[in-house]
C-alpha cells in the first residue's frame, strides 16, 4: 500500500504564550492510498484542526506533512491553493455551496480554477452530477434544493476534478437520517471506486461505517484500529 498522507510529529498551537492552546500535540499519522478512515473525537478534541491540516487549509506550528511524498507543511498560499485543487475534494458539514450559482456552476468552480476548458468542464461537471443522481437539478440554485441534495452537489464538486483524497467534515451533520444514509452510501461507493476517503466526525454511528477508525482526544491520537465490524455493501 502506497503512502498518501504522512504526518510526522505535527503540533498546532493557537495563541502562543501564556494562554496557549495546543490543538494538536505531536501527532503522527500515515494514511495509504484507497483507505477509508474515520477520525472521531468530541468537540475540542482537535479533530477539526487535524482536518484543516490534512486539507492544507492550515499550516502546522511544528512537524511535517507529506502529501504524495511532497512536503506541504510550509507552502505559500498559492501553492496550497493548487494542492487543494489537485489533491483534495472537500465535503463540509454546511455544504458550502455558493448561493448565487446553480448546481452545475458550483461543480464547475474547481475545474475553472484548474484552468479546464469550457467543453471539458461541462462534461466533467455533468458526469459528477449524474453520478450523485442529480441529473434533474443541474440548473437549480442551492436554496431551491433540500439539504441532502445540496450535500450531493457538494460531493459532485469534490469529485469532479478527480482528486485522490475525499475529505469529509461531518458530512451528515446537518441532515436527517434518510438523507444521511443516502450520503453515506454515496461516500462508500466513491471509496469502492478507488478513492481515499477521510471522514471527520463526532458520531460513532458514522465512524462505525469506516474501515479504519482513529480516535482523537486532547490533540492526541488515542486509538487507531481496523474496524472489526466493517462490512462492504
Amino acid at each position, binding site marked *: 500500500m502506497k503512502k498518501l498522507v504522512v504526518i510526522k510529529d505535527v503540533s498546532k498551537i493557537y495563541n502562543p504564550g501564556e494562554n496557549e492552546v495546543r490543538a494538536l500535540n505531536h501527532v503522527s499519522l500515515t494514511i495509504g492510498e484507497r483507505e477509508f478512515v474515520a477520525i472521531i473525537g468530541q468537540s475540542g478534541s482537535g479533530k477539526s484542526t487535524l482536518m*484543516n491540516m490534512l*486539507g492544507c*487549509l*492550515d499550516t502546522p506550528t511544528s512537524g511535517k506533512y507529506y502529501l504524495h511524498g511532497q512536503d506541504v507543511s510550509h507552502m505559500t*498560499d*498559492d501553492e496550497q*491553493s*493548487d494542492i*487543494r*485543487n*489537485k489533491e483534495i475534494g*472537500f465535503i*463540509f458539514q454546511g455544504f*458550502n*455551496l*455558493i*448561493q*448565487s*450559482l446553480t448546481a452545475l456552476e458550483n461543480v464547475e*468552480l*474547481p475545474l*475553472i*480554477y*484548474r*484552468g479546464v*476548458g*469550457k467543453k471539458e*468542464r461541462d462534461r466533467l461537471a455533468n458526469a459528477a452530477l449524474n453520478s450523485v443522481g442529480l441529473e434533474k437539478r443541474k440548473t437549480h440554485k442551492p436554496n431551491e434544493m433540500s439539504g441532502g441534495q445540496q450535500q450531493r452537489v457538494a460531493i459532485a*464538486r469534490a469529485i469532479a476534478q478527480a482528486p485522490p483524497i475525499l475529505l469529509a467534515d461531518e458530512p451528515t451533520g446537518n441532515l436527517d437520517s434518510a438523507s444521511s444514509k443516502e450520503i453515506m452510501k454515496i461516500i462508500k461507493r466513491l471509496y469502492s471506486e478507488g478513492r481515499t476517503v477521510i471522514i471527520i466526525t463526532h458520531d460513532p454511528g458514522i465512524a462505525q461505517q469506516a474501515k479504519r477508525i482513529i480516535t482523537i482526544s486532547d490533540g492526541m491520537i488515542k486509538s487507531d484500529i481496523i474496524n472489526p465490524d466493517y462490512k462492504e455493501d
Partner: protein
Amino acid sequence: MGTVKEYLKSAINQMKHNGYRTFMTMLGIIIGIAAVITVVSLGKGMTDYVNGEINGIVGNYGYVVIDSSKTTELFTPDDIRLLEESVSDLKGVSPYFDETTARAKGPRGTYQADVIGGTEAVELAVSSKVYKGQYFTRQMVETGQKVCIMMKNDAKHLFGTEECLGNVVEITIAGKTAEYTVIGLREDINSEMINTFAGDMDYYATIETPYTAFASDFGYDIDKLNMFLIFADQDVLQKKVKECAKVLENAHGLRGANALWSYSMADMSEEINTVLGGASTFLIWVAVISLVVGGIGIMNIMLVSVTERTREIGIRKSIGARTGAITAQFLSEAAVLTLSGGVIGIIVGIGLSYIVCSLLHFNLIITPGSVLGATFISVGIGLGFGIYPARKAAKMKPIDALRV
C-alpha cells in the same frame, strides 16, 4: 479566456443580486461621468459659438498698423500692390478709414452712421452677404467713384424700402457733406452676441465706401495711411499677416525699428480660447472631484461586499482559488460596476449636453475623445479603488473565511 468570462458573469450576477445597492453605488460614477461629458461638450460648444460669432462680426482678417511714435513713415496705395505681388494666397489688402460719428441722410430721415472707407476687399470683412446689387469693384476704387454699400436695415431706415439701388445718401463728416449712390445691400448681421451686447445702443447705419472717394470728400490723404487690413483664410491668416508686416518693414526701411504692429483675429481667437479653456479646465476638475468621490463610494461598497461574502471567498479558496483569482474576481466586479456607471453616465451626459446646448443655442459637439476618455476613466476608477478591497479579499485565510 474562459476564466475572465467567468469573472464577468459572476460580477454581473452579483450586480443583479444587489440591484438597488448597485444603482446607488453607480450613481456617483454616473453623475461624475455625465458631468465630465457635459462640461467638455459645453466648453467645446461655447468655444465654437464664440469663435463663430467673432468671425461673423469681425471677419477673417488681421491688421498691420504703423506706430506713429516710432517713425514718421506711412503707407501709400503702392504698398497695396506691393503686398498683392509679394505675398501669396492673400484674399485682399485694404486701407481702413472708419468714421463712427458720421451722419447719413436719406429721404426718410437722418441717422448716426459708421462710415468705412476701404478697397473691394472689405466685402470680406463681415460674414453677411451682399444680396442685392453688387459690391464696389477695384476699378470703382481706383477711379474714386462715389458709391456705397449699406445694410438691409439701413435701407429700411433711410429709404423706407430695400428697393433703393441707384438712390443717393447724403453723408456728413465734420461739416463736410458728400452724396453717395447706393449700389449694393448687405444682409443684416444677425448676431446674438451683437444683439446681446449692443441691444440697448441707439441705431446707427453702417455704410461702406471706396477709400479713394471717402478720402477726397472728407479731407484725408490717401498717401498717408497708417494701417492695412489683410484678408486671408483663417488657417493661414496669422502667418500671412506676419509676412505682410515683414514686407512692409523692408519696403519702408523699418527693419528692427519695431514700428509695425500686427494682429490677426486668429490671435484673438487664441486668447478667447485660452480664457474659455481655463474655464472648462476648472469645471472639468470639479467633475473629476465628483468622480473621485464616486470612486470612494465604489471602494466602500466593495469593502462591504468583501465582508458579506467572506464565506464565499473561503469556499472558493478551499476548492483551489489562488490569490490572483480572487483579486481578479473582485476587481472585475468593481470594473463592471464602474463601467456600467460610466456607460449610463455617458448617455445621461450626452442627453444633458443636448438639452443645455440647445437651450443656449450652441452646436452640440460630443467628441469621441471625451466619450472614450470617460469610459477609460470609469474603468480606471473601478480598478484603482477596487484594488484595496480585492486584495483584502484575496489575502483571507481560507479557514478564517470558512469559520464565519
